[in-house]
Structure formats: C-alpha cells, structure tokens
C-alpha cells in the first residue's frame, strides 16, 4: 500500500517529447475518415510503385483471344477490346495519375509560394503586379487553362505536368499571400529585421516555416483536383499518347464498348473516385490536425 507521502514523492515521469510528424499522424489516425483516407492513399501508392509486381499481366500485351472478357477468372477486372488486362492497366495508370498529381502540385506549390511570399512580404508594386497576373489566370476555369497550355505545348507527360501545375498556381499564391500578410508584422519578423537579417533570409527562415502547414494542407487537397484535371485531359485525348495506360484514356476507350463491356469505362472511374476521395479525406484530416483555424473554409 502506498502512503500519500510516497505518492507525492514519486517524481512524475516526464511526457516523452513527440515530433510534430508523430503528433500529426496521431491526430489523423484518431479521426476515422482521415485514417481511412491515409490507408487508401498508402494502398494506391504501393500498388502504383510496385506495378511490375502488383499489375500481374503486361498492361500493353494484346491477346485477341481474350478480348472483352468480363471481370472474374484469370482477369480480375476483365479485359479491353484488344484483350489487355484492365487491372494491370489500372495499376500502371495509377503511376501516371499519381506522378502527375505530385509533380504538378509541386510545380504549383513552388511557383505559387514564391509569388505569394514575394507579393505578401514586399507589398506595393510587387504585390499589385503579382496579384494582377493571378487574377488573369483565375479568369479562366482551371481545366480550360490546362487545355490551353497543353494545346500550345503539345501532349506528353512533362507538358501535362506543367500545364496542370501552372493552372493551380493562383490557389497557392493567394493562400500564401494571405498567410504572409498575417505574419509579416509579427515581432519575430521585426526582430529578424532589427538584427540585420537579409530579405531573402527573413522570407526563407522566418516567414516560410510559418506558412508551411497551410501549404501542406492545400497541396494534399490539390492532388485530388489535379488528378481530376489530368483524367479529364487524358479523356479528351490531350494527355499522354497511347498505348501508355491512363485512367482518363481508359474511360475514353471504353465508351465505344459501353453497351457490351461497361466495365472498361466504369472501373477506371471508380479508381479515380477512390483516389480523389482518399486525398480529400487525408487533406481534411491534415487541416484539422495542423491548422484548426482553417476548419470549415
């Protein structure tokens, strides 16, 4: 039996210091929908990264003997009119969607953050000029902007990434600019300036770390939008040239066979929906974990 004095004298064990990453993960896992999003996102990434193993059949291998096979048996998700395995094409297509998603978001986050920080920090003419450009870009619907850029650059993976990336710049620029305006006048920035920190150093070392969580949240949510835009461009035939499988082009190819083989179009659409949903849920979870202020926006 412990006496009250003994209890009092026992030093309380200090709570282990947790990294910000660990805290964020714990917060995400505690929310059921965010955890679900995380699990789905991981599964999709793993399937895509290990496509040579998880894909099974060769996605380009044609077998007219096995054309238009419904899902089941040797071909889990059936085959297309050229006898190619739909599952395998789906898994390889995930590589395109995810890589466009990640690279395009990196492009837009990079350009948008730079524009937002420069505009927000310096204000005045810089800000006015940057915001005018952003306003012009925003006067085009995202998909149209991406179509216009692809139309000029020509189809192909790199051009697709650039097109979709540039069309998402305004969202990042506006968000970052707003956040910078919020922290610009704070004491630590004044202090950095007072001790003679250069403009670049202040922006990179003091302002950026304070807006980074907002950028991470928007980036996760934007992956969904980018994947949807990429699929629409591929559907219109403005993405990567055949025979490389992409989800959008798989849906387009399937429309001719919709009546007798609906799975060819329907299955890639479900894949897009699950992926977009996963990143949306994960993004919402991240927002709640990292920046409760933004909740409900």
């Amino acid at each position: 039996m412990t006496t009250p004095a003994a209890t009092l004298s026992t030093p309380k064990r200090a709570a282990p210091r947790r990294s910000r990453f660990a805290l964020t993960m714990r917060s995400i896992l505690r929310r059921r929908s965010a955890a679900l999003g995380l699990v789905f996102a991981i599964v999709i990434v793993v399937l895509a990264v290990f496509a040579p193993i998880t894909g099974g059949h060769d996605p380009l291998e044609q077998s007219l003997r096995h054309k238009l096979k419904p899902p089941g048996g040797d071909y889990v998700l059936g085959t297309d009119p050229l006898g190619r395995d739909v599952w395998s094409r789906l898994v390889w297509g995930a590589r395109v969607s995810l890589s466009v998603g990640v690279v395009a978001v990196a492009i837009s986050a990079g350009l948008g953050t730079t524009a937002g920080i420069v505009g927000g920090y310096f204000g005045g003419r810089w800000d006015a000029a940057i915001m005018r450009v952003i306003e012009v870009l925003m006067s085009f619907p995202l998909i149209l902007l991406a179509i216009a850029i692809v139309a000029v650059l020509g189809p192909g993976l790199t051009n697709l990434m650039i097109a979709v990336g540039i069309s998402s710049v305004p969202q990042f620029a506006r968000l970052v600019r707003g956040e910078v305006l919020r922290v610009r006048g704070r004491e630590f920035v004044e202090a950095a300036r007072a001790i003679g920190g250069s403009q670049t150093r202040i922006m990179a070392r003091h302002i950026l770390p304070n807006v980074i969580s907002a950028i991470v949240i928007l980036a996760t949510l934007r992956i969904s939008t980018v994947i949807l835009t990429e699929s629409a461009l591929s559907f219109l035939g403005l993405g990567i040239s055949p025979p490389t499988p992409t989800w959008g082009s798989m849906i387009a190819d399937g429309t001719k066979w919709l009546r007798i083989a609906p799975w060819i179009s329907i299955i890639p659409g479900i894949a897009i929906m699950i992926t977009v949903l996963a990143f949306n849920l994960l993004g919402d979870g991240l927002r709640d974990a990292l920046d409760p202020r933004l909740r409900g926006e």
Partner: protein
Amino acid sequence: MVFVLRRLVATLPTLIGAITFAFILIRIAPGDPARLILGDEYQNSAALLQVRAKLGLDRPVIVQYVDYVSDMLRGNFGESFRTGQGVLPEIWSQVPGTVTLAFAGVFVAVLIGVPVGALAALRRNTWVDYVSLTAAMLALAAPSFWFGILLIYVFAFLLGWFPIFGAGQPDSVLSMTHALVLPAIAIGARSAALVARMARSSLLEVLNQDYIRTARAKGVSQPGVVRRHALRNALIPVLTIIGIDIAYLLGGAVVIETVFARPGLGKLLVDAIYTRDYPVVQGTILVFSLGIVLVNVLVDLVYGLVEPRIRYG
C-alpha cells in the same frame, strides 16, 4: 447604375490581361502559323513570306501586340485556319449551347442541393444527414465526364429513357430539353454537392440565431420558421458558392459536350486543338474568360439585390 459601370470598368485590366495571356500563349506555340495554314506541301519560301506578311507576322512583336489588342477590343478575332471564316461568328454560334448547359447545371445544383442540404440540417445526425453527406462526398470525388458516361449507360442504354448523345431536334423545345437532362445532371452533380454542404452548414448556423428563437416564441410553426425566416438568410452563402462555381460549370462544359457529343464552345475548342486552329483556340478561350468576368459582375449585382447590407459603392 454608377455601381454597374464602375464594376464593369474594373474588369478591363483583367480582360486586357487575358488577351495578353492568349497572345503570349500562341506566340510560344511551336510551329509557324503560316506553315500550318499552307500545309506541309508548301515549303516554298515566297508563298510562306506572303502568308506571313498577310498575317502581319513579319512586323515587330510589339507592333503585332498592339494591333492584336486593338483588334480584340473591337471584336475582330481573326480568321479560322481551317475554314477561313471569321472566328467570332463561329464562336458566337456555339455560345447558346454552352450557356444553356451551364445554366441547366446551376438549375440541377439548386434543385437537388438546396432541399438535400436543408433536409440534412433539419434532420441533423440522423441517417438522412449521413446519407446526404456521403453522397455529397462521392459526388465531389467523381469525375463529371465519367458520371456522364455512367448516366448514359444506365438511363440511355439500359433503360432507354433518354437519347445517348446529341442536343435533340433544333425545332422542338421538348426534344432539346429531353436531351439536356443527362448532361445537366452530369455537369451539375458536383455543384449540387457543394450547394448541399453549404446549405446544410449555413442553415444550421442560422437556426441558432436570436431572430429564429423570436419567431418560434411568437408561435410560428416549424415549416414557417424554416421557409420564411431561416432558409431565406441561409441561402446567401449558397449564392456565393453558385457564383464561384459557374466558372467551373463553364469549364466543365468543355468535357461534358464531348461526352454527349453536344455542339458548344467546348466541342469547338477541343476540335480546334486537334486541328491546331490557333485563332479559334485563342478566341474561344477569350470568350470563356469574358463570360466568367461578366458572371462575376452579375453575381455581385445579385448580392446587392438579395442582401442590402453588402451593397457596394
């Protein structure tokens, strides 16, 4: 009136910016427009120089730019490489198709979104609420063109209720409306989800306000409170969402028109891209941008009407 004028003048820099953007975009496009017009068989430099001179491509870029901006502002959008016809009449003939589709999308969004959102708010934390929130989440994740194909498969192929593609017979309003149903649902589903979410959260917020309590205390029935007091105020944020979303709907029309093989600006644009008909691409993009700028002005005006507190100037 002064406000309308001031608001229209304020859009000028954006419009000139959009024109500049289109100018730069086409100038950085690889390939010589003169060669595109003449085709590969004309490699003869005399013919090329002639076409370049006709297009004004032999002049300094800055002169080209000034001429181009003044041409655009006067509504001279150039000639199509493909047909040789004026670009503007060609675009103009496709505007009604796209505008009809976009507004049908708004109609679907309001028709489905508002009641579903209101019902979810009134039956908060019941199965009605959960089902509608899940449906909204799915609708936001589904690509609109794929949803359109799914609608075609179920309602045109399996059930045979609607035509598979096309815009209906041009002389029959009934046939055109009939052909508009599936595309309108396909394009409006995402907006309906946004509207439902916004209507739900906005109504929940309004229902907690003092004036609602007062109305209840006066003995107004529950449907009366919702219809006469709550919904009316809850719809202002919904209007904002719709205003912002019209830009998305216009952009979405590009893809949906292709799915349903409907004539419109989107189909014109995609076809022009396939044939590298740059003047048409440029013109269509500018008309879209102009449309969106005008819609934004219109939305601001409507705000002033429904919510006098936020009337500007």
